[in-house]
């Protein structure tokens, strides 16, 4: 009797513990920079990096770059555990202004600087290629940027107008706030004008939907496209990392660091910029779905 009760208590105690254990694991993808605990000094080999810096690097700007910055932040923690990179998503415009005003160390812009944005320079850290995908059954293989925009806004409502089979165009995209959506809409100049049939919360879902609907057209990060869908050529140019890099593929944009020209970067920020544009970071950039320059 007594034994049974003790056992029951032990078991319930174990249950309680496992309940809490479940909580601690998650949110691996959370971009919020963890308050860097004095990361195990013992384990850092002194020979690896000549100078261990410390400090905070504030980045601010494009929400499209959130994922890239998130990956870079994680990776940089291993190179310079003393440096914390903060990210604020406020839009490319605010990123440029932040760099001009000096309210952040590095501004982030998912577009190139305009002529009237002076006092700052841009350093391209990655390129973002967006593939236009259709169902493999769709005979349409090539579209111009204008045609894609018209398909997205519903101006072209039937595939027969662009040389395809007779069928209503089903335009599938991402939810409001998504970087890919923002990228597609700003490059094709269809902001707030797209007639979506389906707004999905991940690239995978977009691809799955396009793969299952013969009349569908959608957009997805270049790195996510697989063989279940057909990536069409835009103006005759195939979407590959090479064509994105050499600039011939049209639906792409630059991910830029915006840096104030007059006030020099802090040592920590400069190290972050150098590291992010070096070959060391290219795997991380590719992992975040963008095309690294080196």
């Amino acid at each position, binding site marked *: 009797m007594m034994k049974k009760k003790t056992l029951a208590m032990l078991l319930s105690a174990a249950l309680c513990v496992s309940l809490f254990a479940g909580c601690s694991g998650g949110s691996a993808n959370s971009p919020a920079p963890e308050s860097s605990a004095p990361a195990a000094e013992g384990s850092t080999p002194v020979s690896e990096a000549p100078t261990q810096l410390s400090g905070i690097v504030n980045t601010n700007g494009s929400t499209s770059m959130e994922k890239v910055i998130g990956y870079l932040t994680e990776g940089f923690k291993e190179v310079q555990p003393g440096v914390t990179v903060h990210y604020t998503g406020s839009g490319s415009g605010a990123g440029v202004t932040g760099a001009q005003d000096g309210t952040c160390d590095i501004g982030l812009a998912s577009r190139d600087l305009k002529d009237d944005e002076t006092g700052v320079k841009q350093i391209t850290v990655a390129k973002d290629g967006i593939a236009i995908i259709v169902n493999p059954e769709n005979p349409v293989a090539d579209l111009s940027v204008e045609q894609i925009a018209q398909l997205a806004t519903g101006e072209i409502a039937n595939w027969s107008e662009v040389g395809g089979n007779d069928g209503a165009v089903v335009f599938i995209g991402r939810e409001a*706030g998504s970087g890919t959506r923002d990228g597609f809409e700003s490059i094709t100049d269809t902001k707030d004008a797209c007639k979506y*049939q*389906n707004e*999905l919360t991940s690239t995978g879902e977009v691809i799955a939907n396009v793969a299952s609907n013969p*009349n569908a057209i959608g957009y997805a990060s270049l790195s996510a496209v697989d063989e279940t869908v057909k990536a069409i050529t835009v103006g005759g140019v195939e979407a590959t990392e090479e064509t994105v890099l050499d600039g011939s593929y049209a639906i792409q944009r630059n991910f830029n660091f915006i840096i104030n020209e007059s006030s020099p970067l802090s040592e920590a920020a400069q190290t972050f910029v150098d590291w992010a544009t070096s070959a060391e970071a290219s795997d991380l950039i590719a992992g975040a779905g963008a095309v690294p320059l080196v």
Partner: protein
Amino acid sequence: MKQKLRPMEILMNGVFFLCGFIAIVFVLFISVYLVLSGLPAIREIGLREFLFGTRWASTAAEPSFGILPFILTSVYGTAGAVVLGVPVGFLTAVFLAKVAPPRMAAAVRTAVDLLAGIPSVVYGLIGMMVLVPAVRTLFDLPDGASLFCAMVVLAVMILPSIISVSETALKAVPREYEEASLALGATEIETYFRVSVPAAKSGIAASIVLGIGRAIGEAMAIIMVAGNVANMPSLFSSVRFLTTAVASEMAYASGLQRQALFSIALVLFLFIMAINIVLNTLLKRKKG
């Protein structure tokens, strides 16, 4: 022996009290948090504009935050699920409680329990890969993701709660009622529908309300089949529910958009509260 157990008794008493207390703390915390975080956006947008605005464009150059499409979609979707699911669930419950031979009833009951245990994301996945293309070809639509698909998925999802709660209620009807009816010359089926079902009606009503609660709060399954465009609802158009409105935009939301999502959650919370109050009244009436 008894003397020895006493400290254990007190200890366990404390443990149980603590567990009960934790539940209350969480409910209170969630309520207060939702109200506090949901109100600022409503105040900024305006209650009328927020609840009765028909345009949702949270990231547009001139953002607009009207959630009437979401409210109506949630109401219609739930109503559709009830229309599709309740007849099937109710008749299954009658079958299980009264008609079916015990072995068959056991088999069906196992299947129903299994249905209840399937994670909602699996419903969504199968809905997306099978139901959506099927609806597209069946009704000759450009795209199958629609309110109709969501209704079908929700109808299947609420079946287990309707069946098991109704069945329990039907089984609780005293045998004497039925025997009296049978003795008066009514057939078995007549007895079930004229005597047993009316006697169990509050329990059956509770099962339906429970189903409604499940349907209106479901997000994962329908986000994959409903299309998620903020249209005013119609049966075969792409729609967005209250739940999916929060889920689909939360990841990258910022500023007023984010606050407005909390406000949607608050509206949803009030819906669920209302449903719970109805459910409690029904259950109380059953006892009284």
